[in-house]
């Protein structure tokens, strides 16, 4: 059987960005899949070595433009740990609220994109209708919808206001989620396309460095929010589902949105509890970290994200490395797609929630 070499991407509607998969097909069966990345490589780590910390902060939202808050929080947390800047309780509550809102908007976009991969047209627009409310709120608070540059070392740029809009939104959201669930979750065709497809065994997942919702859908309850200092005092339980296929990866993200809603309601109470926002800002022009290495870690929507800074006492870091979730999910495709058919392959790749800016950094 002569094998057909097929280029999936880089300009392809269902790869959410510029991912190129070189597939070898026999008929429609994939025998080898080799991802080729680097089309969106902006040299984030090289830029860091040339810019001072305050100059690098706005660029950090671009690492994963759907979850910008997470990466500016990572950098701020690293610097605050190095310079031991204390955060006031209100700032912590604001940060948790905006992080979880960003997680909801990222999951909503994924639901729309995943359904569009499978061919259903309308859930995409319904998910974007909800996401628009969140982005409008980000714009009102921070000034930009996605590249918000709102967290600063030692606090947030300016205070949060109009929380009632978010409270109203949190009442509507569960009903809208039930709308999606009634269209999608038990739909016969959706179940045929996703149940039992792309089974990810926990051992393989751990071996491939998969973290976040994909890992929790395979039964391993690893959620860094439990050990995260920012999330102390928030009662939440990470969701772990067992049966490892695309359908559970879809279901776990719906449950995570419900979980985030609970966290946000607690955060809003904390914000209302302590009204005054006392940031302790530092002079931005000469932020110099004492020599040494600093790690910080956070539970981004697509997996554990972490930032490593090695500083040698100069204005810009000696070495800065990012760890992102989708980077290892793309590597997983090499094993997961082998033995699948072409239209199942697209559905499985979609279910892993791969975003290319994260992969290419």
């Amino acid at each position, binding site marked *: 059987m002569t094998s057909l070499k097929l280029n999936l991407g880089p300009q392809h509607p269902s790869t959410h960005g510029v991912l190129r998969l070189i597939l070898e097909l026999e008929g429609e069966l994939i025998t080898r899949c080799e991802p080729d990345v680097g089309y969106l490589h902006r040299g984030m780590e090289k830029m860091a070595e040339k810019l001072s910390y305050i100059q690098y902060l706005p*660029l950090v939202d671009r690492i994963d433009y759907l979850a910008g808050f997470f990466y500016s929080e990572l950098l701020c947390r690293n610097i605050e740990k190095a310079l031991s800047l204390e955060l006031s309780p209100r700032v912590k509550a604001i940060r948790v609220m905006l992080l979880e809102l960003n997680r909801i908007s990222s999951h909503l976009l994924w639901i729309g994109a995943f359904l569009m991969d499978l061919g259903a047209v309308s859930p995409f627009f319904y998910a974007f209708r909800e996401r628009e409310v969140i982005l409008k709120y980000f*714009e009102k608070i921070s*000034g930009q919808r996605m590249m918000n540059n709102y967290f600063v070392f030692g606090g947030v740029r300016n205070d949060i206001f109009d929380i009632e809009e978010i409270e109203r939104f949190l009442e509507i959201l569960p009903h809208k989620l039930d709308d999606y669930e*009634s269209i*999608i979750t*038990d*739909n016969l065709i959706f179940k045929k396309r996703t149940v039992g497809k792309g089974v990810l065994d926990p051992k393989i997942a751990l071996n491939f460095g998969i973290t976040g919702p994909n890992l929790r859908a395979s039964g391993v309850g690893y959620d860094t929010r439990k050990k995260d200092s920012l999330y102390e005092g928030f009662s939440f339980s990470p969701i772990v589902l067992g049966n490892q296929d695309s359908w559970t990866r879809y279901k776990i993200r719906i449950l995570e949105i419900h979980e985030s809603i609970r966290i946000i309601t607690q955060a809003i109470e904390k914000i209302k509890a302590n009204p005054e926002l006392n940031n302790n800002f530092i002079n931005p*022009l000469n932020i110099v970290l004492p020599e040494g290495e600093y790690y910080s870690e956070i539970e981004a929507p697509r997996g554990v994200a972490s930032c490593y800074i090695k500083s040698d006492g100069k204005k810009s870091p000696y070495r800065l490395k990012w760890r992102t979730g989708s980077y290892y999910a793309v590597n997983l495709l090499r094993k997961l797609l082998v033995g699948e058919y072409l239209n199942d392959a697209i559905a499985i790749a979609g279910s892993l929630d791969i975003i290319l800016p994260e992969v290419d950094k």
Partner: protein
Amino acid sequence: MLKEFYYMLLSFLTVFKHLFKRPVTLEYPEKKSEVGERFRGKPYMKGCIKCGTCIKVCPANAIKIEDNDFIFDMKKCIFCGNCSFYCPVKAIKMTQNYELATNDVNDLKLLYKIEGRENERLD
């Protein structure tokens, strides 16, 4: 078997329900979406004391101060708002204007005159 039909029918009815809802889209040129007052659009400068903080703080190196000419290079600016946030005298303000498309390139060099307190030193 019956449950499958019920769920299939449910998904049809939910989509049908949306047929009677008002559209949420917005006709752009006629109706513009209003932006918050913290929106970071085209930068505007008035009352600069030439202290140079904005040059040090701008990630894209988009600000240049020749004597009495304050130049924003719109080809480089990423609208991050660092300059307006860290300017000691709050001279730089980000307006709400986001329609910056032009077809002539020297519109992209915003030039503002520095008058008033120009005797302070540019450290």
